[in-house]
């Protein structure tokens, strides 16, 4: 099972903050995953935006990167605190 996390506005858009599921066999890279989820959640391209960075197992990755069915994959819109 993979764990997906949607931060910031992406939780509002996908309707969930976390999702634990088996990735279909044809989802091998972050590009596959973005396209599949964007369509599945009817996000209208939001999950494809380059300003959304992906972290795999708590590290931001250069894309496309391989994804594995045991990964924790976070979708991160532009960050900023303070």
């Amino acid at each position: 099972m993979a764990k997906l996390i949607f931060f910031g506005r992406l939780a509002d858009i996908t309707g969930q903050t976390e999702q634990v599921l088996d990735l279909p066999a044809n989802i091998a890279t972050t590009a596959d995953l973005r396209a599949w989820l964007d369509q599945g959640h009817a996000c209208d391209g939001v999950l494809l935006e380059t300003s959304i960075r992906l972290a795999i197992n708590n590290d931001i990755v250069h894309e496309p990167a391989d994804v594995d069915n045991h990964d924790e994959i976070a979708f991160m819109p532009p960050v900023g605190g303070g």
Partner: protein
Amino acid sequence: MIDLTDQPFDPAESLRAFQVQAAGAGAIVSFTGLVRPNNTSSPVTRLYLQAYSPMTERGIEAAAKDASQRWPISHLTITHRIGDMGPGDPIVFVAAASAHRRAAFEAADFLMDYLKTEAIFWKKETGPDHATWIEPRLEDYRDSARWTQKEHP
């Protein structure tokens, strides 16, 4: 030194504790960020801050280390709230101590730019008629870019 907390904190007490730790430094610069009661156009009743641990902490630690290498600072402290806050609540407290006042000013300034534009946080502002996720403004990115455009003298 670095504290991410979902509990309210008191910047005056943070400064008091820091002054004890940093005794002997001579110069202490602190920054306190508070939830503003309104944004440019409407009241704000609630601010929610989300982090992604331990990535958020790791990033802040790296920025603190970077600041310590750029400037001769003897002590640093960073406290950052997460979770739900109301108007006037402290969001962030940063303090830097040094024998040199400019080093303390620049290190605190640098860390705040990091926290505003690079630290792993997401912020949602809620008011009577809006609920908006806030991303850094152009001005914030410009402030932050100051530290890469020029080398520290």
